[in-house]
């Protein structure tokens, strides 16, 4: 019954073929805000040379990219920009949260800094470090490539799984005087209404 195949033909599933293509042609969108952005530059520059791992085509237009690297802290004025750029990227897309600030807020537990972008956008890979060394970022990209190869499907069904739909972390934030502020501020009122009880 064995089917005779010439030596230069490999049998695979279409899903795996698509994942193999995708993982080796990641186009990162560098959402570099702070110090990690400089290490992101270092990753692409002479010594570390990200091009060796098939992800060097940095594109600053979100429409062309499928991997967002959030490098640096995201503050409350920047988060709407981040979300908009994330929505502008076309599927399938992935997100790397680079550094302590993007992942958790890092040392900046202050009024303005978002305590981890995964509260507001999906994140696939976290890179620890403040800032992470370029080697760490390269490792994260390799790991993400591995993940894409393992889980990826041609139609992007892996994103439909329930755990991918879940919010990463519950938001626990004391509110009090904010409501008092909101009573005076119509813009904040509208924001709060749109957000729909974000403190659940």
């Amino acid at each position, binding site marked *: 019954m064995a089917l005779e195949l010439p030596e230069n033909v490999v049998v695979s599933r279409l899903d795996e073929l698509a994942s193999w293509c995708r993982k080796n042609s990641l186009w990162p969108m560098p959402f570099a805000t702070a110090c990690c952005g400089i290490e992101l530059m270092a990753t692409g520059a002479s010594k570390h040379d990200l091009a060796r791992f098939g992800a060097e085509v940095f594109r600053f237009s979100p429409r062309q990219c499928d991997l967002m690297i959030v490098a640096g802290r995201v503050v409350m004025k920047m988060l709407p920009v981040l979300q908009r750029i994330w929505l502008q990227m076309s599927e399938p897309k992935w997100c790397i949260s680079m550094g302590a600030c993007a992942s958790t807020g890092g040392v900046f*537990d*202050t009024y303005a800094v*978002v*305590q981890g972008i995964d509260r507001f956008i999906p994140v696939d890979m976290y890179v620890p470090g403040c800032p992470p060394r370029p080697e760490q970022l390269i490792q994260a990209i390799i790991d993400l490539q591995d993940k894409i190869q393992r889980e990826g499907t041609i139609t992007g069904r892996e994103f439909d799984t329930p755990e991918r*739909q879940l919010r990463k972390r519950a938001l626990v934030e004391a509110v009090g005087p904010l409501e008092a*502020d909101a009573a005076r501020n119509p813009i*904040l009122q509208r924001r709060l209404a749109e*957000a729909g009880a974000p403190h659940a």
Partner: protein
Amino acid sequence: MDEHSAGATSAAAATPARDGVADLFGGTRQPPFRGQERVDLPADRVREAFRFLRDDGYDLLVDVTCVDYLEYRGAKHRYGLVYLLAATADNRRLTVRVFLDDPAPTVASATPVWPAANWLEREVWDMFGIRFEGHPDLRRLLLPEVFTAHPLRKDYPLQGRGERHNFPILTRDDG
């Protein structure tokens, strides 16, 4: 006002600017600390005092900032505005402090005297809620306009009041 300060310049040429400006505008001399010349000025005469100081050679406004003395031991006033001046020609420096109080801390803007004050005063307004009269464009500099508090005041908590988490949450379904 101009002839006033022009006359004053020649009169005060022999004495340091600190004494001159203190005498002319009802300020208080402060003893130098670590070699830094300091003077406190009353809030209602700062514009003239600044003109005088600029004509005296302090052409570079290094910084405008503010300190909220709410929890400071022995403080008599709530806010202390700090103007750091420097003279590029002969490397003098002078620290000018102006004290203000609630409920409506207001002071004349230094922007007509030193254009550099423009953004620095906007930052002070943003962070401390101090109004600068005569400022061409007193908007928030750093925080978004929806922000209602002035975060560097001492009665504002470090972690904020939940402003940082008032955003819609995107999941994979959304995009």
